[in-house]
């Protein structure tokens, strides 16, 4: 078997565009709205979700034939929850300020529908390698949208890019003002809506 045969490739690349978990399946948007005021929180959140998705998908795929059907959801949740607690502990030890900013949203990765969804819909039926790719693909698909939303919110709401001021002072002197709406949750809804629209247009997807 080639390392990346057609099916494995599809598992990785589908969620990036044509089957994106956020913009097409509209899963896990709670955190997408909450942590996207600034780029740095969005990036850390994306990395955390990629890690949890990749590991939990792989572990569940390895165990898939051993997991009793009756308790499979609980088993999936325990694996996911352990990974999330682990990430939370690592953040508290190495990136304390970041973990304070992300606060409850790291813990809430446990309830992110994307992760449960991939475990139940993909990892329970496929091998570990393909599940790992599916996990990373979905994580990147999620992270890409998150970072995209954060890019616009930070630029329009704070006039910065990753903490660096990009709107020159002369603009402010000339009467330009940051858009307060972008810092609040409704701003995230509007940006996300525009991204969903643009993406469906590009991917040429029509509702049935």
């Amino acid at each position, binding site marked *: 078997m080639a390392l990346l045969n057609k099916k494995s490739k599809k598992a990785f690349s589908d969620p990036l565009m044509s089957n994106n978990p956020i913009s097409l399946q509209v899963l896990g948007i709670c955190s997408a709205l909450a942590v996207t005021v600034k780029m740095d929180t969005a990036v850390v959140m994306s990395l955390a979700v990629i890690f949890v998705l990749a590991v939990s998908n792989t572990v569940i795929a390895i165990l898939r034939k051993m997991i009793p059907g009756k308790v499979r959801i609980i088993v999936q949740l*325990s694996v996911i929850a*352990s990974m999330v607690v682990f990430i939370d*502990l690592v953040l508290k*030890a190495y990136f*304390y300020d970041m973990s304070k900013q992300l606060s409850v949203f790291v813990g809430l990765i446990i309830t992110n529908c994307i992760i449960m969804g991939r475990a139940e819909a993909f990892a329970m039926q496929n091998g570990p390698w393909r599940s790992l790719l599916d996990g990373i693909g979905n994580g990147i698909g999620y992270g890409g949208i998150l970072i995209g939303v954060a890019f616009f919110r930070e630029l329009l709401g704070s006039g910065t890019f990753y*903490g660096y001021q990009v709107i020159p002072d002369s603009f402010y002197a000339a009467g330009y003002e940051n858009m307060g709406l972008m810092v609040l949750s409704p701003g995230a809804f509007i940006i996300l809506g525009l991204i969903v629209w643009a993406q469906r247009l590009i991917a040429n997807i029509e509702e049935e």
Partner: protein
Amino acid sequence: MHSNNYTLMFTAILTIVLGFFVSTADSSLKEMREKNIEADIRKNILSSLGFEELEQEPWTNEKVDKMFSQSIVGFVIDSAGNVIEDKDPRNIDPEIDYNQFPIYKRVEDGIIEGYSIPISGKGLWGTMYGYFSIEPDGATAKGITFYSHIETPGLGAEVDKPWFQNNYPGKKFVDPAGNLIGIQAIKGGVDKTSPDLYHQVDGISGATMTTKGLNSFLLKDLKNYDPYLSKIRNSRSI
């Protein structure tokens, strides 16, 4: 279909394996986490006493420790306002030492620049923790900071924001007769012509419960320190 015994066995083993994994991670990272929490509290004391963290030069744990040991002296007072000698604020056990209170002062070249006391109490959703700092006169607010709370972002969580915290410096928490009255955050904003302006700040719209809580626990905590602070006020007025 797996048998019940198999299911029980499987879940038991899984629980043990995952539990072992999580507790190993927890205990091996515990030391670093606790260091971070302590540094964060010290950071709060420093910024409540007028130290400013610049964006180009973020405070590392080492830098915080250095500034803290250079400029900050922590000590403990009792409910009568007397300093308890040889007691480190970190050694206060709230269960036993409920009438002992930690206080920090900033000393630069032998001159006291201000005092900082821990404040905590109920906001809307849970307990808020922070520091309240006082000018060397023992009667004027120097600043206020929070390091832990679970108030609503955009509403109660505005207590974290400079616009709110910057209202406190310069306000008095004692009346002209020397009685403790605290500082009140006023719903709908202060009346600029009011004679009470000296102990009032703008409240946060949409966060009535948070500000009410803050007003009352700030006063409650200041009461514990009033015997000590009134000594400072009296010694200065003579």
